[in-house]
């Protein structure tokens, strides 16, 4: 519990400094209130992995995706809660969860007054951690396992402003159980903050059971459907699973081939 509380304190530190007010324009920028990060690690080179560098149209697609998601994340919540956690999942692996997660996170971070914590919540594949070369560092697993680690000990700065990264940590045998544990829920609760968005890069829903619990905890779920691969049956199953949770489900199509986009669509974008 002490770990959780400490994490909570650390997370809520900017929030306490920032009095709650409806008038956000008067508030200082969140970038001025950085999260405590591990000092000896240089900012992770995340920018280079973003879609912006690959294909300018992709960047635009991400931005269009971001708008409704932000609207949902910041919709009025019960009892004045301030949980802004988006769980990014899919039916099957390789659907582009990590890609969507980091791009969305970077895009969120561009919003004013928002800081984004990107969490690699897939301890099996750890694709983001691997991508950023921090797979060997302690991360989420250590944090929720209670191995005397503070959030500040695992949070890494990136080369994107206001975007922080929590690696998956060491792979364990009880990784799935840990993700399904109440400590995970406590971790997310600890990150309740009006200016903080947590993006969970989650395991695929159909291959493991923890996704369901994660969805309960996250409340906002973005299902990435891979164009031309996710079958109707898979999507239907995912929809069924999520219907059993309290999460609000959004769906995004990924890897849509340009050929599938209608003429009108193309014209609209270009």
């Amino acid at each position, binding site marked *: 519990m002490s770990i959780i509380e400490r994490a909570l304190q650390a997370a809520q530190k900017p929030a306490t400094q920032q009095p709650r007010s409806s008038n956000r324009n008067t508030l200082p920028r969140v970038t001025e209130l950085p999260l405590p990060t591990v000092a000896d690690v240089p900012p992770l080179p995340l920018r280079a992995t973003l879609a912006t560098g690959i294909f300018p149209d992709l960047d635009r697609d991400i931005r269009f995706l*971001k708008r409704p998601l932000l609207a949902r994340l910041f919709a009025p919540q019960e009892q004045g809660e301030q949980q802004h956690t988006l769980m990014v999942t899919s039916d099957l692996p390789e659907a582009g969860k990590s890609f969507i997660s980091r791009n969305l996170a970077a895009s969120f971070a561009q919003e004013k007054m928002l800081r984004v914590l990107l969490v690699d919540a897939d301890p099996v594949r750890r694709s983001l951690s691997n991508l950023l070369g921090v797979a060997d560092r302690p991360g989420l697993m250590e944090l929720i396992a209670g191995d005397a680690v503070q959030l500040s000990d695992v949070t890494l700065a990136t080369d994107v402003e206001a975007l922080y990264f929590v690696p998956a940590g060491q792979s364990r045998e009880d990784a799935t159980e840990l993700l399904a544990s109440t400590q995970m829920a406590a971790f997310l609760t600890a990150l309740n903050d009006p200016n903080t968005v947590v993006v969970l890069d989650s395991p695929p829903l159909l291959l493991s059971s923890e996704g369901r619990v994660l969805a309960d905890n996250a409340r906002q779920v973005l299902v990435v459907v891979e164009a031309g691969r996710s079958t*109707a049956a898979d999507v239907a199953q995912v*929809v069924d699973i999520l219907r059993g949770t309290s999460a609000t489900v959004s769906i995004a199509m990924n890897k*849509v081939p340009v050929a599938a986009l*209608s003429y009108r669509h193309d014209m609209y974008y270009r």
Partner: protein
Amino acid sequence: MVQLRKTAAPDLQVILDIARSQVLGCWRHRWLALGLAWALCCLGWIAVWLMPNVYGAYARVYVDTQSVLRPLLEGLAVGSDVLSEVALMERAVMSHPNLEKLVRDTGLGMVTGERRETELAIVQLQKSLKLRRDGDNTVTVSYENIDREKSLQVVTTLLNQLIEGAMDENQADRSTAEKFLAEKLKEYELRLNESEAALADFKRKNIGLIPGDNNIDYYGRLQTELAQLGVIEGRLRAARNRRSELQRQIEGEDPVLGLLAEDETPAVMTSPQDRQILELEQRLADLRLRYTETHPQVVAARETLEQLRERKEAAFKAGGSQVRAYSSLNLNPVYQQMKIQLSQVEVELAQLQAEYSDQAGVVAGLRQKVNIIPEVEAELKRLVRDDDVNRSQYDDMLRRVEAARVTEEAGSSKGKAFRVIDPPKVLADPVGPNRPLLFTAVLVLALGAGAGVAIALNLLRPVFFTGKDLERRFGLAVVGTVRQGLSATEAIAQRQAVMAFVGGIGLLLVSYGLMLFLTRFAGTASLAAGGLGA
């Protein structure tokens, strides 16, 4: 206007979107489809290559549908259609018994000799044996078999069977016609006999009522008889007049003729006894000259004379004056002649009266039959007509039978209803299988199968390509669509993959072309081989 576009546009757009998504969905399985097409093509083409060559034999025959029946029954029966006769022949050839005979003759199904094998061979024959009508009367018989000699043999055998069968059939035709004609002839003969007998019987029964050969009918005859009756009556009247005149003259008031000569010839006019006495006296004188008075003859003559004299005296005493007057009249020749004439007229009159009564009887008889005669004549006419008709038909039939006999003789020398135009011949080139067509079919089927599999898989496991697809399927709102971002190398790889796929299809088409080329080459090779073999 904006609203109009809004309502009008989506339909086509939706259709386009769905079509695009479906095409892309199928495109996912392109490699599987291509592989399947390749596999099927390879298998199919090998199978086509391995198919045995089929050799075709054919022969052309002229079918003489003008069979012997035709001229014989001209006008008697309705002739049948030429084309239908050929069709009938075709059916007869393709009939089961005929084909069985053919199979037996050619030894087609004789490998194991089983019944089932024969049946199989018959079915095969039914399929591969073809009779095609070229012109009006020309029929091409063709047969295909993987064995060149066999196909020739089948056609030759069939042709022989046809010709033999036709001859049999002709003979059968002829005998049928003859039998028919003979029956008809007998029938007409019978009828003719009947009518003739009826006619004769009728004539016998009505013998008095039937006009003679000079064709005078009843009324003519009646008139003739009446005229004759008139003639007889006239003659009768004339005879009666003559008789009455003669009687008047004989019994008339002044029999002048005899009185004038009474004085001049009293001595001359002696009685017969006088002349007898005179003669007897002369004879007695003669006898006295030769004989004595006592000679018996003289005595007899003297006695006779005495008797005569006595008789004369007695007669003279009885009626001297009368005898004298009578004898003087009797002795008148005119009177005597008139007497003779009178008696002649009497006789003639009696004869005429008999004739008249006869003729009157005939006329009366004819008059009596005035009601029967026309009926009899009508009946006679009918009988005669029947007889004539029967006789003419009988004659006609007799002629026909003669003609049939002549035709048969002519036909047996002329020969067949089938004439071979092209004798059985087997083509050097195999006529089948149509490998180019089969290659094409295999290619089309293989490509179709590939496409079909891709489509089936896409239908079995539908996927989504746009947010619209998801919305249509689940009614879920899609918050965003992220397109596929390809790095330069990825784009190149994808393009290469597409090119590889296109190349795969192209290679398949090239292989197809190669197959066609090889087929032609193989065809010429087999032609050369066939030429050498021949």
